[in-house]
């Protein structure tokens, strides 16, 4: 009941608005898919989210693995390093990235100080900047589920594989990786969905050309006062997210089975 009031009702109004303002029908959706730039933004949102998810996975997997192998003290340390950024405000962290990445920022000062470049390397207001910032911010959401999953893998499986003559790489691919897939799936899903709706980081670290869907929704609603079209965009984002979650959940599921043997 509580959920219905605070969650379902606003959602219902948004969807309803998208079909009724300014007039009844699917005009808003036709306009969205009929305009090249909006479709491009949708595609860019998806591509950026995939990219961020992959980077988080590549960084998060070895990290989570280290967490499972370290002693209690090392593990506490590693968990601490993951959690600290999580406790820091998203806005503060993004703002810190602008200070680091801007043309007169830390990275460029170091590069120029070392004589590696004489002109600033443009990091901020590029897709690179957005991806760097989003990856750092979303990394904990990858590491934590991964860690939870990797922790349950019995190390003796790997020893058994080695015993039976598997080289480390083969043992990893055949034994460890499949067993870790539920964690990979959960982490990727969380990171990907978060990334789809990201607003602050791309707005601060990207240029208008790197705008993601949530940014143009804000433009429509608070700047252009076009509630109907903004709602339609939100509707598109919601539907795309639901479809992808359904697909991903299906991909991940068979691997889950292998764990309950």
């Amino acid at each position, binding site marked *: 009941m509580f959920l219905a009031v605070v969650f379902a009702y606003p959602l219902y109004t948004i969807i309803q608005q998208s079909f009724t303002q300014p007039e009844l029908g699917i005009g808003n959706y036709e306009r969205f898919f009929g305009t090249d730039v909006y479709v491009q933004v949708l595609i860019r949102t998806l591509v950026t989210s995939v990219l961020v998810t992959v980077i988080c996975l590549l960084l998060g997997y070895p990290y989570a693995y280290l967490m499972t192998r370290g002693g209690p003290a090392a593990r506490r340390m590693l968990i601490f390093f993951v959690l600290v950024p999580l406790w820091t405000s998203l*806005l503060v962290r993004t703002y810190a990235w602008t200070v680091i990445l*801007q*043309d007169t920022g830390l990275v460029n000062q170091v590069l120029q100080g070392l004589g590696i470049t004489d002109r600033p390397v443009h990091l901020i*207001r590029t897709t690179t900047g957005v991806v760097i910032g989003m990856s750092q911010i979303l990394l904990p959401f990858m590491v934590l589920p991964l860690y939870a999953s990797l922790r349950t893998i019995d190390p003796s499986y790997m020893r058994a594989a080695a015993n039976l003559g598997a080289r480390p790489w083969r043992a990893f691919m055949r034994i460890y990786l499949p067993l870790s897939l539920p964690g990979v799936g959960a982490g990727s899903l969380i990171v990907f969905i978060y990334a789809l709706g990201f607003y602050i980081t791309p707005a601060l670290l990207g240029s208008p050309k790197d705008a993601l869907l949530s940014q*143009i929704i*804000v433009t429509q609603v*608070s700047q*252009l*006062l076009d*509630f109907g079209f903004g709602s339609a965009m939100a509707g598109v984002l919601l539907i795309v997210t639901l479809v992808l979650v359904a697909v991903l959940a299906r991909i991940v599921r068979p691997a889950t089975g292998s764990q309950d043997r």
Partner: protein
Amino acid sequence: MRRAVVTRGGSALLSAVVIAVAVVGCGGSEEGDTSTAASGSTSGGQLTFNTWGGAYQEAQMKAIVEPFRQETGTKVNVTQPIDYAKLKSMVDTGNVVWDVADVEPYVSRRGCKEGWLEKLDYNVIDPNGFLETMPKTDCSVPNGAFGLPIAYRTDKWKDAHPRNWAEFFDTKKFPGKRSMPKYAESGILEAALLADGVKKDALYPLDADRAFRKLDTIKKDIVFWESGDQSEQLMNTGEVTLCACWATRMHDTKVNQDTPVAIEWQDAIYGWDDFVVPKGAKNLKAAMEFINYGTHPDREIGMTKYTPWGPSRTEAAANADPETRDWVPTTPEHTAIGVPLDYDWWGENAAKLDEQFAQWLLK
């Protein structure tokens, strides 16, 4: 999100977050942000005034709100930031909390036409003495102007700086990043057309396609600012050394952060803000009195003591405070070489150009 929301060191995005929350319909921020000029007297009524926040609001508090409270005994709640989406949805949903709002004139013209603003009572408000280039309407009176001149870092451009918009757009002569405002009604299109050789009395109706073509030529060198704070920060850190920026903000960063910045007033674009009353406001009478009081020449001169906000009445504009006068956009010496925005045209075309601008940004 157009103007100051966070005073200093804050970011544009904080305001965006506030707006995001506000749009979702959480009215909580309102109470949180309220600064009340509590009334000592019991005689007066009350009134809620919504404005932009930051140093601008502080100046309004000192120059208008406090004296108004003392003279009339009216209790004034001051809320911020201004949010056009919220203003419109207040009227749409019949829950009008604001009595007076400080908005840009393309909004007041659209709101007047679409019927979500009250007609003003010119028996209470003095209708005379406004600058010719800043006309009042049935629903709005101008309360003061912001200049959008060329601002430049004096340490970077010691010997020569861009002296008009054509030079501002000349990236060969003046290489490096420059900042411009990120919304269509700011004057950015006018600047582009002036740079492209359009005469200032032939700007309207705007040839938007031509303006966008001209902007395309320097698009990769433009860093867009979304809030006044952001423009100050860009100039202060030297991320950009040239800026189409509000003079009030450049004055602020020079005085408070020692940023080496100066203004070129030739062809400086200026727009202004209106006081408006949302349809269905609960304290109509007090709202009219407040608007009349706030646009009195004495109060407008008072404003210029704190910030170079351009008076809208000629008498005040001619007598701006000597300390800030060089930064005030509507003094006779600055209007003589300046370019006013035509908000009657913008009122008709804002929606269309907002859309075109938003799409152009994404390209």
